């Protein structure tokens, strides 16, 4: 089985492609059959991915020598693309994680989407997404990866706008596509530069040649430019400042989509890609600093927004943005291991929280304001308690998963600072403050939604097993998934690392700090939103600092600024150019036509067919000629026919 999985790794993405095609062309009229096809294919992918991951993680050879095979996909003089498969511990981990979460989300969706008129289509889209995401993960070539990268974007677009009758969903889908396209523009330039300078887009070949960039005549400045342009793609895809604006709006999609695409898998593609290309970034330290700065800033920035949001999924979305910032920060300080570790644990606890939020919304018929909820844990114990597990994991309470990975990020940032990067202390401060805010906003949500007095919601009941089962599985994973990367037995960093495997002493002081920050956040949330029954303190705080509150609640007015830019500058410019086109360019064309027509109009009087007119013209012409040539009269008369 392991041997088979390794040799036929391309089946992992292919199975969901087949289920996509089956659903679209065959089983669409039969909803339950469609979901069965999708889940069956996903289960197949998951089993293959699991045995593949097992094969990779039990065989240390893969760590140094990735499994790589490829075929010619396109070729011409000076440009060849070999598409193929690259399996190393990082991609094996991703295959496992993506197929697992996709499987759980599809099972959940059989309950959540029940009765939707486009139920089959939903599963078709989910299958297409899973296929593209799995394809992205195992691609061995940057262009191939870019194709899948855009395809996951397409699926994201289709699924955000899944409720096509909603104007908000339609606008959010469009915004997501266009915002990520801005990033892709930069990334495309980066890819073009790489192809032109190094004449290959194969990941392993690039990793081999880029360290020798100086010998190949590529300057450090150019390489920095390439790295930063390239980084724009991940900035947009992984919701980093300033291209994060689409991700919170993406919550317009059905909640399983938010869990799968906008929390666990697609949005981490940017992190994964930067991780894959870390060999480029480490060559130009300047670009790494940019990555770290964007990451740290985004982490804090999004956390400050999350603390005041009222919609349950919006809070989680800003939380995702913030956690993705953590992952970028870890990459920026050079630790692939810590970044992907957080990616791994985050996938479980964030998918868990989204699915649990979906369960709540399902029960409340999509009333999303956390202030209108309360005491739900009694009516929905599984949803409530699994959410609490997720809350503990993200806040960083040991031994839940998030604690280990976040601690690892704090540790590598601290070490980065200690090794002479002054900015590192700033990053560390950002990260620590974010840790506190994270615990606070998540537990604010938990206390408001699940605890306190019950609000008027009589018909609320726990979701069906199809929805609670994935929650339970994810809750278990959120509990234990971090244990493979504890500082004492850090299996994780022996598997997945860039450069030398990280092996430091356990930093107990740092762990203590991390736990204290988490507890402080939870405690503050408890005081403000649980102990204080009518939340007077919280409300008066918002009233006392309206400017600060609004800045956070209105998301720093960034959306407004972008809307202004699009409406005024882009659309205004478009209008100006269009007017230029119809009045100036076309004006010249029509002018020429009018000139031709006009001269024709004028000249047509020369051919009226009236003899008198001709005679008149004839006479006038003679007169003119006579005067013009200044002939003496006798000669002139002679010319006119000899009359004397």
């Amino acid at each position, binding site marked *: 089985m392991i041997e088979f999985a390794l040799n036929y790794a391309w089946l992992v993405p292919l199975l969901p492609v087949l289920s996509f095609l089956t659903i679209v062309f065959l089983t669409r009229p039969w909803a339950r059959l469609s979901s069965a096809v999708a889940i069956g294919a996903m289960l197949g992918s998951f089993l293959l991915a699991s045995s593949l991951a097992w094969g990779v993680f039990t065989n240390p050879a893969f760590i140094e020598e990735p499994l790589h095979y490829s075929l*010619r*996909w*396109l*070729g*011409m*003089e*000076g*440009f060849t693309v070999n598409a193929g498969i690259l399996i190393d511990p990082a991609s094996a981990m991703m295959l496992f994680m993506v197929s697992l979460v996709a499987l759980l989300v599809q099972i959940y969706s059989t309950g959540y989407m029940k009765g939707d008129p486009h139920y089959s289509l939903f599963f078709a889209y989910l299958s297409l997404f899973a296929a593209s995401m799995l394809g992205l993960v195992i691609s061995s070539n940057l*262009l191939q990866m*870019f*194709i*899948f*990268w*855009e*395809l996951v974007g*397409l699926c994201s677009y289709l699924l955000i*706008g899944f409720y*096509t*009758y*909603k*104007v908000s969903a*339609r*606008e959010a*889908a*469009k915004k997501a*596509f*266009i915002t990520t*396209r*801005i990033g*892709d*523009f930069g990334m*495309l*330039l980066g890819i*073009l*530069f790489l*192809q*032109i300078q190094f004449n290959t887009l194969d990941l392993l070949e690039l990793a081999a040649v880029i360290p020798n960039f100086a010998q190949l005549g590529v300057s450090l400045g150019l390489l920095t430019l390439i790295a930063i342009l390239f980084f724009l793609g991940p900035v947009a895809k992984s919701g980093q400042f300033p291209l994060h604006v689409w991700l919170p709006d993406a919550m317009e999609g059905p909640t399983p989509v938010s869990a799968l695409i906008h929390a666990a898998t697609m949005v981490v593609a940017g992190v994964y890609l930067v991780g894959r290309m870390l060999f480029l970034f480490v060559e130009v330290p300047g670009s790494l600093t940019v990555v770290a700065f964007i990451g740290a800033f985004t982490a804090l920035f999004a956390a400050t927004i999350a603390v005041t949001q009222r919609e349950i999924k919006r809070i989680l979305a800003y939380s995702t943005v913030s956690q993705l910032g953590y992952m970028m920060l870890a990459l920026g300080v050079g630790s692939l291991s810590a970044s992907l570790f957080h990616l791994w644990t985050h996938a479980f606890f964030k998918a868990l929280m989204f699915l649990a939020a979906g369960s709540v919304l399902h029960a409340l018929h999509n009333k999303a304001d956390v202030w209108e909820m309360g005491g739900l844990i009694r009516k929905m114990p599984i949803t409530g308690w699994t959410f609490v597990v997720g809350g503990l994991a993200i806040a960083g309470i040991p031994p839940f998963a998030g604690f280990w990975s976040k601690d690892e990020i704090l540790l590598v940032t601290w070490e980065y600072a200690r090794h002479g990067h002054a900015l590192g202390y700033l990053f560390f401060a950002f990260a620590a403050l974010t840790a506190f805010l994270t615990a606070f906003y998540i537990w604010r949500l938990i206390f408001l939604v699940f605890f306190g007095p019950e609000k008027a919601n009589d018909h609320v009941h726990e979701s069906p097993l199809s929805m609670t089962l994935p929650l339970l599985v994810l809750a278990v994973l959120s509990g234990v998934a971090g244990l493979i990367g504890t500082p004492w037995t850090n299996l994780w960093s022996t598997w997945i690392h860039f450069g030398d495997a990280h092996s430091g002493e356990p930093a107990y002081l740092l762990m203590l700090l991390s736990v204290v920050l988490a507890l402080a956040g939870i405690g503050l949330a408890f005081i403000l939103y649980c102990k204080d029954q009518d939340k007077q303190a919280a409300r008066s705080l918002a009233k006392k600092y309206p400017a600060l509150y609004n800045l956070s609640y209105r998301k720093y007015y960034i959306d407004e600024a972008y809307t202004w830019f699009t409406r005024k500058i*882009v*659309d205004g*410019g*478009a*209008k100006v*150019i*269009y007017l230029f*086109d119809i009045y100036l*360019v*076309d004006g010249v*064309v029509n002018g020429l*036509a009018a000139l031709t027509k006009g001269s024709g109009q004028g000249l047509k009087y020369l051919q009226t067919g009236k003899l008198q007119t001709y005679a008149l013209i004839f006479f006038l012409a003679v007169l003119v000629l006579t005067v013009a040539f200044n002939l003496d009269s006798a000669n002139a008369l002679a010319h006119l026919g000899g009359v004397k």
Partner: protein
Amino acid sequence: MMTFPFLTTALLAPVIAALIIVFLPKEKVKFYKTTAAIGTGISLFISLYVYFGYDQATGGLQWVDFGRPIPWIADLGVTWHMAVDGLSLPLLLLTNLIGFTAVFASWNVSKRPKELMILLLLLITGVMGTFVAQNLFIFLLFYEVVVIPIYIMVVIWGSSKRVTKEYAAMKLTIYLLIGSAFLLVGVIALFVKSVALSGTADMSFEALAQIDFPEQFQIYIFALLLVGFGSLLSMWPFHSWSPDGYAGAPTAVSMIHAGVLKKIGGYGLIRFAIYVLPLGANFWAPYIAVLGVIGVAYAAMSALAQKDLKYLVGYSSVSHMGYVLLGLASLGVIGVNGAVAAMFAHGVMASLFFAMIGFIYERTHTRYIPDLGGLSHYAPRLAAGFMLAGMASLGLPGLVTFIPEFTIFLASFEVFGWLAVVAIAGIIITALYILRAGANTLFGPANPQFKGLQDLKGPEMVPLVVLGSVLVIGGIMPSLLFDMIDSATAPIMTQINAALQIGGR
């Protein structure tokens, strides 16, 4: 050997179908629609057969009708020389893909369907002829054949809002004719010079390409050809016929015109202008690149300001042709491959787009975006076709349009540097106007005004299925297209580069 005249047969099939239709009674609507479908179907089948039977390893001109050029007007070196290579084949296939589907896109036209079908068939033959003729004279002959049906079709079956359809028809025709006037001057000068230089009269592209014309002469003649072919390709600033023309034209004409007819301009530039006059091309290349880049950005911005779907796609097609020019101007294998592939890809995409817009117009009697909305609730297949075309238009990877754009970017970025970046930034604007149009036409709340709107069914599905499959297959397996094109451009570019080495710099 292969002496059966496959290509001539492909050319004649629509003409014969048209002749049959002439003699069919007016009432037998189904009958002559089927005849038209069979006629174009035969051509499509032959072009597929020839495409996949072409031996890429050998390259060069193959499938020569009757096995050799048939002399026609000996004094002028005119021969009936029908043959294909990797440059003509994709465009021949494109013509017949679009021709075949255009018949189905016009299936429900109720106004004088008989005449429409006849003219459509003649138009298809005319366009096809330009791509298989290896003789300059015959090439121009077919090009002129195209003009007549277009004018009549726009005037009779057209529809327009901003300008009258008569204006649109006139503009389209006059632009075509002015373009051909420039071409004619250039061709005559070239022919006279070629006779003077080589002593023999031969109007085949291959023979002309062997002659070393003086550099100054090449520069002058190339300029004439550039204006001629450029205005056909809607090169900025000779583009303004394109949005008005497409908006005015009936669906089938928009499909063929945007899909293949304007590609005659790009084809002519590479097959004739660049191939025969490499030094002229080299001189003008930077200017072409600049005009191409302006075209990309300018037309994309103009498209953003459009409210009429056909105008939007019209400007969009001007923008895409800017990419083609940019690829050609790079004068390298990668860029020229990309340009030819982009013409194919754009043809498939644009004709699908126009077919879908035609169906929308047929059903709602409007193309004005603010009047539309929520169509996907009533017509999901129509919406799928629209979005598929839209996604191809914005160059979504995985569809046939992406790799051509990528190769053009690659080549032009290397040659022209930051100038190309402006064109690459066009992908953002394109996404903006396409997604806006899609969102405002198809999505949002269902509009009760369109209740009971029919989704695509029966023959109407043909354009979506045929063109949609090409979009997807070409995206997944770009080598199907690129290997073919490369088999022609690689030797041509080698020859051109050799000429450039000798001829100056």
